[in-house]
């Protein structure tokens, strides 16, 4: 089986302070994969970089063996729920329809087919009766499901979701999980950013343990060991965080982004 995501020697920073250091891993296709690590460990940053929303200082990422731009229509992205203002004047259907927006239909009207697909997506997350509801009136769990429906409407092959279980009640959590397993059975790849250790072992087939640097990546049986978890969750990585401050203070330049070409492939 081929690879879904490849991350090569990735270093990413905010205001020249690195929050991901030389992260390098490959993910399989057709699995539910958890990106797990404590808060502030760089999970969101990693996802954003894979989605091309942040430029790495060095390294690169590929999806299905190609740069993102070549496969964009096969990739779906669910941002963190708190990253948007839910007071925005839109109803549930409006938001799910956004999953049908494409570069090549930006100036075109929404079609009947788009509506059909959006309706189907709403049905899958059990929100069809809320289609006309203002998004500001939804509970946290419902808002999360709206985001998932929007991503389903993209009809992609790989789904990257940032903390889809946060602020969600137990029943919704089960429903989302079932949905993810259905997607996996259809051969889709699902990558979930998740910070809760309790449930990670149960939810995922494959785990990436992250804490500013890569702690481990692999099948969960191999990764979910006491030593590795301790390494990811126990204590702050003082050396790296001190070094990060130093680099930020001195504005020391990191390697250039085009490092891929310069690097001898061995």
């Amino acid at each position, binding site marked *: 089986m081929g690879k879904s995501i490849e991350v090569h020697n990735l270093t990413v920073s905010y205001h020249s302070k690195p929050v991901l250091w030389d992260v390098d891993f490959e993910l399989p296709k057709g699995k539910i994969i958890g990106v797990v690590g404590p808060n502030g460990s760089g999970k969101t940053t990693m996802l954003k970089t894979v989605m*091309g*929303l942040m430029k790495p200082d060095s390294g690169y990422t590929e999806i299905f063996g190609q740069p993102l731009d070549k496969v964009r229509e096969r990739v779906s*992205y669910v941002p963190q729920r708190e990253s948007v203002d839910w007071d*925005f*004047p*839109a109803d549930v259907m*409006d938001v799910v329809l956004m999953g049908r927006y494409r570069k090549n239909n*930006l*100036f075109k009207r929404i079609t009947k087919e788009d509506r059909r697909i959006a309706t189907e997506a709403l049905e899958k997350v059990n929100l069809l009766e809320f289609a006309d509801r203002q998004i500001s009136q939804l509970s946290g769990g419902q808002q999360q499901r709206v985001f998932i429906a929007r991503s389903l409407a993209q009809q992609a092959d790989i789904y990257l979701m940032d903390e889809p279980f946060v602020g969600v009640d137990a029943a919704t959590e089960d429903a989302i999980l079932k949905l993810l397993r259905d997607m996996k059975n259809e051969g889709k790849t699902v990558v979930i950013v998740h910070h809760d250790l309790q449930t990670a072992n149960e939810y995922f087939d494959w785990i990436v343990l992250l804490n500013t640097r890569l702690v481990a990546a692999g099948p969960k049986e191999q990764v979910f060991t006491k030593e590795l978890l301790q390494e990811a969750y126990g204590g702050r990585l003082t050396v790296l965080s001190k070094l990060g401050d130093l680099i930020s203070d001195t504005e020391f330049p990191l390697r250039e982004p085009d490092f891929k070409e310069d690097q001898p492939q061995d």
Partner: protein
Amino acid sequence: MFDLVLIKVLFGTLLLASSSAVVGVFSFLKGESLVGDAIAHALLPGVVLAFILGEGRHPGYLIIGALTAGLIAHYGIAFIEQRTKLKSDTAVSLVLSTFFGFGILLMSYVQRTGQGQQAGLERFLLGKAAAITMMDLYVFMGLALLLLLGVALFYKGFQLMTFNEDFAAAIGLPTGLIRFAFTVLTVLAVTVGIQTVGVVLMAALLITPSAAARSWTSSLPRMLLLAALFASAAALGGTFISATLPKMPTGPWIVLVLGFFGFSSLILAPEKGWLARRKRATSNRNKTQRENLLKLLYGAEERAGEPVAMTADAMVDAREAHYEGLTMTLRNLKKEFLVVERPDGFALTDMGRSEGRRVVRLHRLWELYLTERLGMAADHIHPQAETMEHVITPEIEALIVKELGNPEVDPHQSPIPYEED
């Protein structure tokens, strides 16, 4: 009264106000109300330079000058934000004040050389709707059309970029192009706008209609329409007022009428408006007083170990409450068969007792929750529980009971009274 000048001014302000309102909706929703203001100030040097080079105020030159200055300012702000650690509002004000200062400098130069006095460059500062010419009107019409078409064309892009920019970028929308289009539209709107209401009041023309419209609707298309309607009404109203009263400028009147719409919307809007909020507050207060009276009677029964009655005076003494609304509340409680009036005062019915018990139970459960779960000291919890006993719903109550494992007594060792069944 209906002379040609008035009709010209009416038509011009109407076009201008409604089209800039539509563009302003997206700035308002993005929480970038200041950016329109910044661009308005930043246009000044472009407009004045165009005035000098174009030998007078030919609208074509003015627009090109304004557009250039506006775009430079916009990308200047973005550049500063990217390259420095300055906060966005700092970058905005930095660019705003620099450009505006430069514009004023140019203006005083023009004024000194005597070019400016006839055409009145100061119209860009305070606006001068009465000076609208036929030529201006054609340009306004063209621009208004352009703005509306632009918003219609880019509707999906503007909507998604405003709501969730990361997602727009993630699905590969041309975010740079969309932002550029939006900036051009904003600059165009401001260019026309400052000729009517001036630099200083321009922000009001962009943002106030949106603020008013948002109070009434939660649908983006309807909000766009409403903002345009509010702006048009303000343009009409402002123009008429200034035409009726001698020597009154149009621009400030338009903005004043807009402000009136804005404030009345904030007051009258359903749910979020001041009136609706006040109504809710009153109803909450009534609920609180009702439940407090029932609780008081229940507490008295608990101490006495038998049904008791209390007079209104005794209630006031016990609760240290005011008479205000007490008679009314008691009358309502009587009507709902929660209390009965006896010769010696008011006493609980079975229904009232159950309700009073519920309030006491919630109070004690919450006190226990605060000490057990949030580790608060027992002498600090009473005031909090006084509020929460009126807020906690049956579902939350069930959750608390479950989480605390069906507790028997509160932190002060008073029993928690469950409904016996």
